[in-house]
């Protein structure tokens, strides 16, 4: 069965094209250390933005700036049209925030906690009961938070973040330490909020999870914006190879494939029953045609570069020591083109 694992999140519709976060050349210095250096970006309503970067890249600083907890050393940062930092702005803003590894107040119950936060945000109490039910916490609403699992705490955290139906939601490592089901639940809620027009900024290291949900990624490195854009545009910018995954190869097929100089040059991984070829985007069709002519494989799939690969690419460019080298072979595109063309002529 032929199938393609293609992701094209750039085509997701944007519910509302209003700019809710606009950063123009913002920098933030702590003494002589520049945590953020000349960063510019925009976030539209209804967009999911993945904020990526190595540890210490400036992600948390950027989130704190958007939240108004810090003020930029230079540049302009506007959230919902207000310059961040002023109390008047914060009172008028509609922001939700889920911090990383927040432990809340262990001696309170889920019900008490949400009621407390609801009062501080001026939200009516029925909303609390609604959210407890929506996030599957109704049965545990009177249990102390010290007895809650990590997944339950994160659900509660997301519930408090969306108490006041925010226009901008900031999530700091929302899925760290969660099991796949709990992560899927969180991303399902994120998708719902996105559909309602909420702009969501997710700072995360779990790239595989965020890849399918995001509209754009902002990649930070050493305080600078290394890249930003949809996965498709980042793939195009990085020119990383596509992967052709060949499943269940017989020995004869494998030997035939490895005997072919063009295909052999593309082999990235050769273990178990399958084999992976790394092929540049523009050569994908040509190599695939060549492959099917030479080795009639029955089951294969094509995977474009993942967000993880894109991220590694930028981290490598930043500093080779920051990122472990991906096990890829360097393929000379011109050589493959020439070889394929020569074969077709012959």
């Amino acid at each position, binding site marked *: 069965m032929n199938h393609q694992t293609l992701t094209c999140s750039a085509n997701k519709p944007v519910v509302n094209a209003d700019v809710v976060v606009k950063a123009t050349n913002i920098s933030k210095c702590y003494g002589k250390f520049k945590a953020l250096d000349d960063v510019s970006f925009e976030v539209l309503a209804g967009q999911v933005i993945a904020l990526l970067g190595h540890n210490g890249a400036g992600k948390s600083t950027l989130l*704190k700036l958007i939240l108004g*907890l810090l003020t930029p050393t230079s540049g302009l940062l506007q959230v919902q049209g207000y310059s961040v930092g002023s109390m008047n702005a914060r009172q008028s803003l509609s*922001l939700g*925030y889920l911090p990383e590894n*927040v432990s809340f107040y262990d*001696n309170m119950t889920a019900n008490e906690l949400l009621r407390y936060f609801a*009062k*501080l945000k*001026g939200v009516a109490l029925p909303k609390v009961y609604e959210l407890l039910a929506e996030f599957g916490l109704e049965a545990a609403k009177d249990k102390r938070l010290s007895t809650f699992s990590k997944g339950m705490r994160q659900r509660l955290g997301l519930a408090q973040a969306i108490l006041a139906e925010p226009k901008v939601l900031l999530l700091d490592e929302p899925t760290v330490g969660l099991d796949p089901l709990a992560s899927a639940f969180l991303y399902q809620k994120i998708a719902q909020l996105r559909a309602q027009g909420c702009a969501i900024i997710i700072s995360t290291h779990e790239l595989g999870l965020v890849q399918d949900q995001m509209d754009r990624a902002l990649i930070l490195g050493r305080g600078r914006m290394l890249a930003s854009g949809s996965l498709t545009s980042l793939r195009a910018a990085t020119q990383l190879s596509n992967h052709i995954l060949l499943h269940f190869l017989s020995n004869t097929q494998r030997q035939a494939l490895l005997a072919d100089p063009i295909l052999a040059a593309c082999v990235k991984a050769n273990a178990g029953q399958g084999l992976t070829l790394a092929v540049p985007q523009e050569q994908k069709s040509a190599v695939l045609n060549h492959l099917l002519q030479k080795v009639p494989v029955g089951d294969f799939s094509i995977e474009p570069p993942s967000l993880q690969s894109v991220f590694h690419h930028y981290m490598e460019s930043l500093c080779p020591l920051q990122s472990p080298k991906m096990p890829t072979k360097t393929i000379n595109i011109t050589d493959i083109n020439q070889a394929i063309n020569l074969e077709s002529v012959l």
Partner: protein
Amino acid sequence: MNRSEVLHRRLSALSIVSTIAAKEFKDNLRNRWLWMMAGILLLLSLCVSFMGSAVSGNLVVFEPAQILSGLVTLSVFMLPLGAILLSYDSFVGEKESGTLLLLLTYPLARWHLVCGKFLGHACVMTIACILGFGLTGLILISLGDTQAQLSIAIGFTHLIMSSILLSLVFVLLGYWVSLCVREKAKALGILLILWFVLVLVYDLILLSAVVGMSEMFNRTVFNLLILLNPTDLFRALNLLATPSDTLAAKSSLTLLAQTGLGLPLMYGLLGGWIGALLLCCSWIFKYQEI
């Protein structure tokens, strides 16, 4: 901004402060801190009142002035310690757990948080002091004659009011340190040193200096040095409120009572300490990057 908007903001600030205060108060009810503090003060006051004479070989109820003097001497150790333990992790604890960062993203000003916490802790200390000393006072009033009843009522009222004020000063000192450090353990360590200096060492140094270097210390300098330490102010206030000839003759602390300042001014000064520390904490917190 029109008048209705101003009123709305003020009501909103009041609502936020009272919400935070209620949470702090409930926390201290839940972890039984309030009952523990009230119990300790009650036990202390009952022991001093009814068993204080045992050390002299008799078992009689002391004179009101003697009881109050004993209570003041012991309270000056207990109350600041209790207040410190109540407040040392108020900010640094929330910083460590991540809840402070979260709260600051809410539509509230930082002074709301300081005032809310302070109001909650003030309620805890007020109830603890009223229960702890008030019950003993009531028992003593019910046992005494008319003259003693009045003296006890006045003395205990001053003791309770000044105890509350002293506790609040140390609650705020706890906030101050809690705002300035990054670990709970460090906050507690610094506050215990501060307690040790203000409650134990300061007096000894001051009295030694007065006795040993009397030519250098005139009355004004001495008064000023007393005013710089809220625990001395507490002692001086209570000694002034319950004058006793026999006590005055025996106690070296009489010097403290001879500051020449009136009771209202002493209450005002303790209140001034509270106001200054509250402003100071709000100011530190306002300009702090989390």
